[in-house]
C-alpha cells in the first residue's frame, strides 16, 4: 500500500484507452464499474475530442457480483459490436474487474464475433498507463499485422503517437514533412488515426520510426523480429537529436549523405543572438517521462547553454537510459513517481527554472520558480490551437520559445535593473494597467509612505532590519524572492540573527557566480 496524492500516470487500462481512442474502427470493451467512466472526460475535455472514446464499459454493480458479471460482459460486447460495427475489438478489465476474474478474453472468444477480438492482460496492481498503452499497441500489432510484400520505393511507418499524447498530433505532421524532404513516404502512422486495416499492412514499410518509445518500443522490437523491419532509436526532439535522427534514417534507408534542408530551423541563431546571453548557465531542473526528459537534457545543455542541475523521470521503465544520461551530466538521476520527492529535490536544488510536467509547474508556482512544460501528463493547455510540435526543426523552434517564455526576456531584465528605482517598476505601484485610474503623483506618495518606515520582519529567527528590508524592495520583484531566501540562508549559515544592508550584499557576493 502506498499513499498517493497526485499521480503522473493513470492505470494501465487508461493507456489502452489512449490507443483505442487514437485509432479508428477499433472498439474497446472494458469490464469496469460505473465510476471508471470518468476516463472519458480526459479525452473529451483535456484533448477537446468531439467524439466519445470508443469504449463500452460494463458498469457492473455490487448486486451483480457473484451472480452474472460474466453475462453482463458478454451483453456489453454484443451491444458494442451491433451498435458500433468495429473492424476489431479489444477486451480487458480495469482494476476492479481484474479482482473478480471473469476472463474477458475467454468470454469474448466464446461469442464467435465475426471480427478479430484481442484480449488484453494488463496487471492493474503492478503497472501503469504507459505500460498499458505499449502493451495494447503491441498486442494489436501482433493480432492484426500480416506478412506482406515491401513497397518498391522506400517507405516507413511512424509508430507511437496516441490520444492524450504530449503534442503527438503535431509531431506526426512535422516528422512526416522531414521524412518527405528525405524522399521517404510514410506508409502508416499508428496508433493515431490508424484503422485495423492499416495495422495489417504495417509490413509493407521498409522500416519504422519510433516516435515515442514509451508507447511503441515493444511493438517496434516485435516488428523487427517478425518482419525484419529495423527501427530508429533516436527521438528527434532538439536540433542535435533531429540531425542524429536524419543520419540514422539515411543509414537505414541507404540514402547518400546529402545536405538536408533545415532552413525552417531558427533555434541555433536565436540561441547565439546576444539577447540570449542571459540564458547562459541558468540552472535548470528537468523531470518528465524518460524520452522527453532525456531530450530536454541535451537541448538544455548543448542548445540553450543552461546548466542541468537535476534530471529524472517518473516512468521506471526508462530508468536505465535516464540514469545513463544523468551520469554523463555528473548527476544522480531521480527516478520516482512520488511528486513529493520531486518537490523536495527541487526545493533543495533551488534551480532558476524547471522543465517538467504540469505537476512541476504547480511545484514551481508554489516555490516561485518559473517552469516550462516538456512532457505528459497532459493538461488542457498542452493542446494548443496552433501548430506546436516538439520534434524536428519546428519542434526546436517551439521549444526555444516555450522555455524562454517563463523567464524575463534578457534585454528587459537589463532595463528593469537600470530603472529599478523608478516607481513604474516598483512592485508596490502594481502593474500599469491595474492602477490606471490613480493619478501618478498620488500613487508615488502612497508608495513612499509605505516604504519609508518598514517594520522589522522576522523569519526563522532571523530579523530583517528596516534598512535591509527597504533595500530588498528595490530589487526587481522577479529576483527578490531568491535574494530574500539566499540572504536568509546565508545569515543562518553565518550565525547572523539580524540582516543589515551589509548582510544583504555579503550574501549577494557569496552567491554570485
Amino acid at each position, binding site marked *: 500500500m502506498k499513499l498517493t496524492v497526485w499521480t503522473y500516470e493513470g492505470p494501465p487500462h487508461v493507456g489502452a484507452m489512449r490507443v483505442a481512442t487514437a485509432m479508428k474502427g477499433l472498439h474497446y470493451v472494458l469490464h469496469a*464499474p460505473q465510476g471508471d467512466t470518468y476516463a472519458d472526460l480526459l479525452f473529451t475535455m483535456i484533448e477537446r475530442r468531439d467524439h466519445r472514446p470508443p469504449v463500452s464499459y460494463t458498469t457492473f454493480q455490487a448486486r451483480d457480483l457473484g451472480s452474472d458479471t460474466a453475462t453482463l460482459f458478454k451483453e456489453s460486447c454484443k451491444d458494442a459490436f451491433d451498435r458500433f460495427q468495429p473492424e476489431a475489438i479489444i477486451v480487458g478489465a480495469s482494476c476492479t474487474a481484474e479482482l473478480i476474474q471473469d476472463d474477458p478474453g475467454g468470454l469474448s472468444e466464446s461469442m464467435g464475433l465475426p471480427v478479430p477480438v484481442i484480449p488484453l492482460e494488463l496487471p492493474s496492481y503492478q503497472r501503469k498507463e504507459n505500460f498499458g498503452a505499449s502493451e495494447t499497441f503491441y498486442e494489436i500489432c501482433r493480432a492484426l499485422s500480416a506478412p506482406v510484400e515491401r513497397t518498391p520505393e522506400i517507405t516507413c511507418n511512424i509508430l507511437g503517437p496516441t490520444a492524450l499524447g504530449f503534442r503527438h498530433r503535431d509531431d506526426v505532421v512535422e516528422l512526416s514533412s522531414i521524412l518527405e524532404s528525405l524522399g521517404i513516404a510514410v506508409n502508416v502512422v499508428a496508433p493515431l488515426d490508424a484503422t485495423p486495416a492499416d495495422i495489417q499492412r504495417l509490413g509493407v514499410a521498409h522500416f519504422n520510426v519510433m516516435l515515442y518509445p514509451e508507447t511503441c518500443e515493444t511493438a517496434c522490437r516485435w516488428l523487427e523480429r517478425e518482419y525484419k523491419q529495423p527501427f530508429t532509436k533516436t527521438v528527434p526532439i532538439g536540433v542535435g537529436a533531429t540531425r542524429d535522427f536524419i543520419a540514422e534514417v539515411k543509414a537505414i534507408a541507404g540514402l547518400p549523405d546529402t545536405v538536408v534542408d533545415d532552413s525552417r530551423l531558427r533555434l541555433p541563431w536565436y540561441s547565439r543572438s546576444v539577447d540570449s546571453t542571459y540564458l547562459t548557465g541558468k540552472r535548470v531542473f528537468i523531470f518528465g517521462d524518460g524520452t522527453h526528459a532525456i531530450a530536454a537534457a541535451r537541448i538544455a545543455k548543448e542548445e540553450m547553454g543552461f546548466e542541468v542541475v537535476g534530471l529524472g523521470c517518473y516512468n521506471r521503465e526508462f530508468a536505465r537510459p535516464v540514469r545513463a544520461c544523468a551520469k554523463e551530466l555528473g548527476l544522480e538521476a531521480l527516478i520516482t513517481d512520488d511528486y513529493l520527492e520531486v518537490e523536495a529535490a527541487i526545493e533543495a536544488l533551488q534551480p532558476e527554472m524547471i522543465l517538467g510536467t504540469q505537476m512541476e509547474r504547480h511545484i514551481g508556482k508554489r516555490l516561485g520558480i518559473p517552469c516550462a512544460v516538456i512532457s505528459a501528463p497532459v493538461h488542457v493547455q498542452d493542446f494548443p490551437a496552433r501548430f506546436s510540435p516538439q520534434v524536428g526543426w519546428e519542434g526546436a523552434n517551439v521549444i526555444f520559445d516555450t522555455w524562454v517564455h517563463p523567464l524575463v526576456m534578457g534585454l528587459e531584465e537589463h532595463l528593469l535593473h537600470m530603472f529599478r528605482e523608478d516607481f513604474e517598476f516598483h512592485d508596490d505601484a502594481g502593474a500599469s494597467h491595474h492602477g490606471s485610474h490613480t493619478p501618478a503623483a498620488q500613487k508615488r506618495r502612497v508608495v513612499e509612505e509605505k516604504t519609508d518606515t518598514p517594520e522589522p520582519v522576522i523569519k526563522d529567527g532571523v530579523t530583517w532590519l528596516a534598512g535591509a528590508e527597504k533595500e530588498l524592495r528595490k530589487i526587481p520583484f522577479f529576483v527578490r524572492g531568491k535574494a530574500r531566501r539566499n540572504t536568509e540562508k546565508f545569515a543562518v549559515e553565518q550565525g547572523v540573527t539580524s540582516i543589515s544592508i551589509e548582510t544583504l550584499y555579503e550574501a549577494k557576493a557569496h552567491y554570485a557566480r
Partner: protein
Amino acid sequence: MNAFAQIKPPSVGCGNAPVLKQRGQREVFCGLTSIVWLHRKIQDAFFLVVGSRTCAHLLQSAAGVMIFAEPRFGTAILEEKDLAGLADANEELDREVERLLARRPDIRQLFLVGSCPSEVIKLDLSRAAERLTQAHAPQVRVLNFTGSGIETTFTQGEDECLASMVPVLPETDAEQLLLVGALPDVVEDQLVGLIEALGVPVVKALPSRNADTEVGIGPNTKFIVAQPFLGATAGALAGRGAQHLAAPFPFGEEGTTAWLRTIAEAFNVSPEKFDEVTAAPRARAQKAVAAASERLSGKSVFFFPDSQLEIPLARFLTRECGMTALEIGAPYIHRDLVSADLDLIAEGPVLSEGQDVDLQLDRCRAAKPDLTVCGLGLANPLEAEDLATKWAIELVFTPIHGYEQAGDLAALFAKPLKRREGLTL
C-alpha cells in the same frame, strides 16, 4: 388567523408518472468524487481512499486542477502484495495512517473511504476505523464510508459520508433545527441567517466545519435536508429519533420559500413574521430570476443522470424559468426526499432512473433539446452534434441554493445559450 400562502401545484404532477428504467452502460462518477467538495467543507478532516490507481486518477481528474500543496485527501493504493493476504493489508493501512497523522497534526477526523477494489477483496474498513480510533483517540476520530462505484453514484458519496457521522453524534435534548448537507459556507450562512431571523432558537449544520463545533442530536431535533441525494443520512437521523421536515428543495425563489415555510410551520412561526423576513429576499430573487431566465423561457431541456439534483432543478427550470423538460434522468430517485418536487412538475417529461447511455443518447438526439444537462464525458461530443450543453458537475461545485443564488442558478443554464447566440463562426 392568517394561513401560509401555499404554492399552486400543476393539475397533474409527475408524482405518479411512470419511470423509465433501462439497464446498460451508466456514464456517471462514483461516490469518491464527493471528496472533492467534502474535504473543502470539513476543514479538519482527511479523506483516505483505500483503493487502486484508478481511484487516485479519478480524484485527480475530478479535482481538475492540482492547486493544493498537499490536499486533505489521498489514496492508499493497493498493490499486488496487499491482495495476497488480508492481514497484510490491515497492517499496511495502519502504517500509512500512522505516517499520515504524524505528518498532519492538524487533522482531527479521518475518513477511511471504501472503493470497488477494497470492497471486492472484502477489506473491512469499519473494523479498521474502530481499531484506528482506539489507537489515535482523542486527538483523531476515524470513521469509514463507501464511495465505491459498485455501491454509490457521485453525490451518494456525500450521503454515505454524512450518514457515517450520525451514529457518533452526541445525544442532546435541546430543541433545535439541523440543516443537513455540505453547502458552500456562504450559502449555509445565508440560510442559517434567514432561519434564525424567523425565530428558530437553535440552528446547527451537518456536517459542521470542524470537529470542535459538532452538533448533537435527539428527539427534539427537527432536521431539514438541503440536498436531494441525502437519503441514507435522512434515514440515519430519523433512526436517532430526529424528525424529518419534508419540503421541496431550496432552489429558486419558489423552492427556497417552500423550504423555509416548512421550517416556519414546524417551529410555529407566524405567517406575518415569515413574510416580514422573506419578503425582501424573495423580491430580489424573483427579479434576478426573471432577468436571468429571459433566454430560457420557451426553451426545452434534457437531463442526463448525474447528481440527483435533476428533479428539483427541473422543477425550478419549468416553473420559474419557463422551460419545458423533455427528459429528467436521475441516477436514483429517492422518493422520500424528492416527491414534493415531483408533484410540482407538470406531467409531460420522460422520467428515467438509471441509464443505458447509448439508448439515452439516441433519445436525446431525437428530442433535439435546446439545452442538454450532462456530464463532462458527453458535453463536447454533443456540442459537436450541435446540441447546447450545460456541464452538470458545475451544479455541485457552485453556490446555487437559496434566494441570493437563484439568479445565478438561472444564469448558469442561460450561459451556454447566450454564448451560442454571441458567436459568429
